[in-house]
Structures are given as C-alpha cells and as structure tokens.
C-alpha cells in the first residue's frame, strides 16, 4: 500500500539533515587538520614534500568524488578493515576535503606578501614561529571567503553518501519518495533543506570576498 505524503513524511526527510550536518562537520574538521598539513607541505621549501602534496591534491581534484567514495568503501574491507558505513564515509569525505582545503590554503599562504616571510627570516624566527605568528594569521584572513565557499560544496557533496547507502538527507528523501510515490515532493523537500543550509553560507562567502577585496 502506498503511504500518503504528510507531515510525518516531511519530518522523516528532515530528520536526515542531522546526518548531513554531522558528516559535513566531521569532514570539515578532519579535512581542516589534514588540509593544513597538505598546505604546509605544498608551500614547504623541500621539493619532495611539495611534489607529494601536489600529487595528493591533483588526485582528488582530478577524480570524481563518487569514485573516491567507492575506493574507500570497497578498499577498506580489502585492506583488512571492517568498518561501519559512518567511518567509511567520514574517511572518504575527510580525505576529499583535506585536498581541497589544502589547495585553498596553499593559495592563501602564497598570497601573503613575500616581504613578510623575509622579515621573519631577518628576525631569525624559527619555521614554527614564522608560520604561527606571521604567515598563517594573515593567510587566514585571505582564506576565509573561499573556505566558506568550499563548505557549501562539501555539504552538497555529502549527498553522494546516499549512493553507497548511507542514510542522510538525500537518502531519506529517496526512501520517502519510493514509499509514498511522491518523488517530486520528496526531492523538492530535500532540495529546500539543502538550500536553507547552503544559501546563507554562499551569501556569507560572497560578502566576505567583497569585503576583503576592497581592503587589500
């Protein structure tokens, strides 16, 4: 028997938003930590570190996110790790986010005027002090707008977890769509929820971009 599309169905779709937000946050935080390492490697003075980070970034930017998820999802068990879907998708999105954030932050680090690094050298500051107190704080200002922009991409990207069966916003819309046979409503609802999540972030990113563009 076909279920009616009512308030409880709309709420069922909406409940998927928790997993979407949580997954996005995990990927953002995990990706941020790894991504900082990637960005520092990419801007390091050692050529081999630069190359490794460059290859890492190119791989993730040159392959579909869906393939990356498939590789983690089917690869982990092959390598001998039996993990639940949560851990698999969390690893997949963390790796994905780390490459993109790494590339964004590489650009921001390199956008800090060269004189700043030279001044730090002249003062005899160590690498850690130079990065922590001179370069990164300035790079952070530059990176805020594109980083927020990437968060939008990441939230939208988490919808692909639905394809490997992970239940989040898109998957719960899929479930309700097949139970009620009201796909237009179900996917419309999911779309609205995504829009409500992403639109403010997009606007924020645009506004930040304008603000920093005027000042520099």
């Amino acid at each position, binding site marked *: 028997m076909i279920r009616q599309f009512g308030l409880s169905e709309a709420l069922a779709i909406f409940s998927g938003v928790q997993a979407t937000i949580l997954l996005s946050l995990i990927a953002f935080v995990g990706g941020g930590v790894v991504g900082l390492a990637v960005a520092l490697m990419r801007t390091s003075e050692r050529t081999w570190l630069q190359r490794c980070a460059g290859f890492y970034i*190119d791989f993730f930017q*040159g392959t579909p996110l*869906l393939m990356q998820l498939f590789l983690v999802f089917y690869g982990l068990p092959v390598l001998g790790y039996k993990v639940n879907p949560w851990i698999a998708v969390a690893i997949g999105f963390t790796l994905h986010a780390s490459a993109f954030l790494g590339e964004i932050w590489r650009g921001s680090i390199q956008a800090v005027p060269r004189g700043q690094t030279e001044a730090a050298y002249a003062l005899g500051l160590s690498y850690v002090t130079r990065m922590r107190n001179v370069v990164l704080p300035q790079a952070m200002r530059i990176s805020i707008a594109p980083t927020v922009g990437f968060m939008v991409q990441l939230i939208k*990207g988490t919808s*692909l977890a639905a394809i490997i069966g992970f239940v989040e916003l898109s998957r719960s*819309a899929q479930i309700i*769509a097949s139970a009620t046979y009201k796909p*237009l409503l179900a996917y419309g609802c999911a779309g609205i929820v*995504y829009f409500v999540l992403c639109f403010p972030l997009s606007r924020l990113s645009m506004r930040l971009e304008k603000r920093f563009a005027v000042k520099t």
Partner: protein
Amino acid sequence: MTYQFDFSALLPYWEQLLRGCWLTIVLSGASISAGLVIGILAALAKQSRFAAARIAAGTYVEIIRNTPFLVQVFFIFFGLPTLGISFQPWSAAILALSLNCGAFSAEVIRGGIDAIARGQYEAGTALGLKPLQIFRHIILKPALRIIFPALSGQFVLTLLTTSIVSSISAEELTSIAQSIDTLTFRSFEIYIVATVLYLTMSFGFATLFKLIDRLYFSYPVK
C-alpha cells in the same frame, strides 16, 4: 594483507571501459555546450533592464548552486514524470548537467562581459569598424581570453560530475564500471581502473585546454 588483486579479471571488459570513457566525454561535451548557451542567456538576463528577467535568472542560478547535483538529477528524472514530463536516462542526464553547468558558467561569463571596458566599443567605432567586427575582434576575443581558464576548469568539473548520473542508470563510465563490478565481483580493482581513467581524462583535457590557451589567447597585455 591477504587480498589478492586480480586485474586480469577485468581484461575482457576493456572495450566496454573505453566505451564508457567515450560516453563520458560525449555527455560532458553535450552538457557543456548546452550549458554555455544557458550560461550566456542567464548572464545577459542578469543584466537585463527588466526586473522579472533579473529575478528569474538570479533565482535559477542560486537554486542550482545551492542544492546538490544528485537531488537535481533525481528531481528531474524521478520527480518530473509525475507531472507528465518524462525522460530517458541520457536526456535527463544531459538536461540536469546542462542546467547545472549553465548556472555555474553564468557567473564566469558575467565576469568576462564586465571586464571589457566600455571604451573598447567606442574605440572600435572610432576606428570605423563595423559592429560585427567590433564584436568579434575587440569584444569576444578579449572576453573569451579572460574567462577561458575558468571555463576550461568548468569543463573538467562537469566531466567529473557526470559520474553522478550513474545513479539514474544513464550509461557512462561509472555505470559501466558498476555493471562490470556486479559481473566480476572485483569491486576494488574496477573502481581503481575507473578512477585512473577519470584521472587520465581530466588531465588530458586540462592539458589540451592549456595548449589552446597558449596558442590562441597569448598576446602581450600591455
């Protein structure tokens, strides 16, 4: 690690995989072409004198940019038929990809149009050029030159996005890989191969576009 990799199980399917690459390229090419037309229209509409056109174009761009492509595909392929508008998987895929690509390239194109100074038109008229000549030589080319890198990036992005249409069983590289997976049970191997193929395609096109950029759009700025 006890797993034995077996890529040889995939050998009989190499022709299908190549076909998958070709279909992916055709899908991307068709979608970006239609997407560019939509993008140009949306960019022009955004600058229109009529508020209705501006609002419509703005709404379109924002909706597409702020919702996942997967939901857009599902909405078109599963949702629209309940209104009596139904598509074959491939047409739905091209429609969804074009709409997606159009929204993203609209912003890029607007940037290109904005970047051409008003003085360019006037300089062209002062030199006695005909309107078409002005458009071709001192509007279109500089504008294309500015937006070309961003547009070629958009092409590669579209190429990678096509993998998502496998979820409505439109035939391309990912869906072919999935069907080989169900025949051979060598999931990890087939997706490694598919990933390498995508990587090759995206790098191939990125290099090609860089070459075109150097050949056609390199002339001194100042």
